[in-house]
């Protein structure tokens, strides 16, 4: 059996694993990364990137379809035609370019990428089934970056018309009727995309409203847009199995109902793959379903780190990347610890949502005296000229020092603000810092400036 020796072995080449490997390689650490799939993990292969491609294509199609029925801005168009197979091929092309890019980056950093299914034997050894036969890898440091996978509903096992988010990104025909079980961000992103592509969409959410992890104020513009798009939303409703006729059984507040569906997309969340790849055999300390880590991503076993979705919420690619970078630097002997103040979160719903830090309610629950400022995009010139004025930007700051505690926005294109909003929190910005910064006109970003001015009691444009 072939044997590989290395200093650092990373199990999983998702955003956490491949970033960790690239950074370690840059720092001269002899690194091996193992994954059965092309590098990039869920994010590149069946998550962030392909879904954004589909969302964009759906938006383009939807605009043309709207213009063909309702001319606007002086533009009319003929009826657009959709070839979803071609759309998916275009999307796959992007994914291939990106996964290929990651492989190149790994090679440039002198990281060895081993394609195959890994089984960790102990904290220093893993066995990998490669197409060329089994390989044993011996390492000094092990990083577990095995990620997460969609949760199945027992009464709705994946297969046939019941599909996961991964399957939804590979359909070649738009389903006539799509039922979405789970009104979280994945279900809504895909549900809205298919609604725009012409599907008749019903969203079934068990909680009292969609996107329950965000506050009601923030999700209201999304709920309004869903209504405009003709998406039916059943809240406080639990999905059962399929009826004999293949309809989705739903127990709602108004009684039971069968929802006829050609496809049932189940997006009720993701679970960490904390026991995959033989990791269970290490008997690491757990924190619920996640691997317990400290502020340096160390697990309970010396020389074994864990990063990414397997370590807890929020399960976001950029959090995994930051953890991977930190672990690589720790392995290279640098002093590092997790001290991030802000992990931005975005929803590519329509309109988009971005959130960083605390909401006013969360800040109050944490016992903070706060001041808040909200600026509606309906008062923003750029939003008007772009033809979508829905949404707002809201800031929350400490009442005593005016240090910003959180910023949320909902509106078209606001996801692009995420970096700037996170920067404000990482730098410890006060309302006065942002109020004193010139924001370019006309941009949606002016809403941040105005919201801070408003929190200070002297907004200019409202």
């Amino acid at each position, binding site marked *: 059996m072939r044997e590989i020796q290395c200093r650092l072995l990373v199990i999983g080449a998702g955003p956490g694993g491949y970033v960790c490997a690239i950074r370690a390689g840059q720092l001269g650490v002899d690194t091996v990364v193992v994954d059965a799939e092309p590098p990039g993990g869920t994010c590149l292969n069946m998550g962030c990137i392909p879904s954004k491609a589909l969302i964009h294509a759906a938006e383009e199609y939807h605009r043309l379809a709207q213009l063909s029925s309702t001319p606007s801005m002086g533009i009319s168009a003929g009826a657009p035609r959709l070839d979803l197979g071609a759309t998916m091929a275009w999307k796959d092309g992007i994914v291939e370019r990106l996964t290929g890019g990651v492989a190149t980056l790994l090679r440039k950093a002198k990281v060895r990428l081993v394609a195959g299914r890994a089984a960790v034997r102990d904290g220093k050894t893993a066995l990998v089934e490669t197409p060329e036969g089994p390989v044993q890898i011996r390492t000094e440091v092990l990083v577990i970056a095995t990620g997460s996978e969609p949760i199945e509903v027992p009464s709705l096992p994946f297969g046939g018309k019941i599909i996961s988010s991964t399957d939804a990104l590979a359909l070649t025909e738009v389903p006539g009727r799509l039922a979405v079980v789970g009104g979280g961000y994945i279900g809504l992103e895909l549900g809205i995309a298919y609604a725009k592509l012409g599907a008749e969409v019903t969203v079934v959410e068990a909680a009292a409203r969609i996107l329950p992890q965000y506050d009601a104020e923030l999700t209201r513009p999304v709920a309004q847009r869903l209504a405009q798009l003709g998406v039916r939303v059943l809240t406080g409703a639990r999905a059962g199995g399929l009826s004999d006729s293949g309809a989705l059984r739903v127990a709602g507040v108004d009684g039971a109902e069968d929802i006829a569906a050609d496809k049932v997309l189940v997006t009720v969340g993701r679970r960490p793959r904390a026991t995959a790849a033989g990791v269970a055999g290490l008997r690491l300390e757990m924190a619920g379903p996640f691997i317990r880590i400290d502020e340096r991503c160390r697990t309970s076993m010396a020389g074994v780190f864990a990063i990414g979705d397997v370590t807890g919420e929020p399960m976001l690619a950029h959090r995994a990347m930051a953890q991977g970078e930190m672990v690589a630097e720790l392995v290279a002997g640098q*002093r590092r*610890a997790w*001290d991030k103040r802000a992990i931005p979160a975005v929803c590519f719903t329509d309109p988009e949502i971005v959130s960083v830090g605390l909401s006013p309610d969360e800040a109050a629950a944490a016992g903070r005296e706060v001041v808040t400022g909200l600026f509606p995009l309906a008062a923003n010139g750029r939003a008007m000229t772009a033809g979508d004025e829905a949404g707002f930007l809201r800031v929350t700051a400490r009442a005593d*020092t005016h240090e910003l505690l959180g910023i949320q926005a909902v509106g078209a294109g606001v996801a692009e603000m995420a970096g700037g909003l996170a920067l404000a929190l990482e730098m*410890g910005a*006060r309302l*006065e*810092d942002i109020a004193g910064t010139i924001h370019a006109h006309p941009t949606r970003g002016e809403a941040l400036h105005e919201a801070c001015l408003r929190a200070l009691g002297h907004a200019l444009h409202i």
Partner: protein
Amino acid sequence: MGIHAIRMPDIGEGIAEAEISEWLVQPGDVLREDDPMVAVMTDKATVEIPCPVTGTVIWQAGQPGDVIAVGAELVRLEVDGPGNVADDAPPAEPSRQAETAPPDPEPAEAKAEAAAEQPAPKPAARPAAAPLRPEGERPIASPAVRARAREAGVDLRLLRGSGPAGRIGHDDLDAFIASGGIPAPSGPQADTGIKEIRVIGLRRKIAERMEAANRVPQITIVEEVDATALEDLRARMNAQGKGARLTLLPFIARAIVRALHDQPLLNAHYDAEAGLIRRFGGVHLGIAAQTPQGLMVPVVRHAEALDLRGLAAEIARLGAAAKEGTAKRDELAGSTITITSLGPLGAIASTPILNVPEVAIVGVNRLAVRPHWNGAAFEPRKMMNLSCSFDHRVIDGWDAAVFVARLKELLETPALIFVEG
């Protein structure tokens, strides 16, 4: 639209200038006729100057503490219709700053104006001056500062941040490392801050008066008074429930009036420059009072013509007026002798400073029960000291001692206070 200039009015009594104590309006404010514009302080009192016309404030002369001459421009208003000045006439600058003002030639009574506080020039930035954050609160620092600190093995929780909201910057980190990484002490610590407070208004007047008094050689006599009988009398009168509750002060005032009857020279002003002593017929009794603005001395006019209840009422009325800042100018001037009493804070003895040009001041110390030898045994008596100062240029020690002894006699046998002759 025109510009209407309002000048510092002549507020009487030969006053040539007034100090701005507080602006009641800001540029941009719209004023109607008779709206108060500014509070100014003269030698005697604080006066609010009303606006004579309707208009919008566009300019005002100086800051609180500036002294404006009578007749100089005070405020400019934009008014409907023609104004009273050409638009391009530049407003006159405030005549001068209060700090450079020479001491007032005339003695002035205390009046209502607080010493204005003003931010001091910032001393060299010392991170140690900022407070450490409360327990459990994370230090605010940029990611770059945090990374550098970690690489240098520095725990940012030990640092003070000199930035806004206590933010720790690269400079703070450099200074901390350069200092050898000595953590900011969490116990008692030196406060190196200096706050400069401009001495203006009443505080400046008090300082000037005290300086003037310090030029006078003063003699202070402290005498013990057995106030048991006086307190018994006071308690009985208060128990009768007629009129307002009596304090000790009106009794002492009465006693002073009686004592001055025998020694009129102590009820006088000494004008050293003129080489004159002005002996007054009437006893105008200054009552030193602590007010939120500072020490003020409202005056009981013609105390010799008031009975005990009348004195009590007048003392109470003037004390309240002084505290509220509503005392009129003539109620704060013209005393011929002064009483100073700090009540329960009155200490065992004090060295009262003359309210010049007066020649005598009576200080009342704290009343307390003390053992007293009556010739056979100790008995508890309500004892109180009087600390009295005199202008030794014109009052000899003998006269001073006689006056104090007379006060003691009157207060120990209070019936004498009320006996004619």
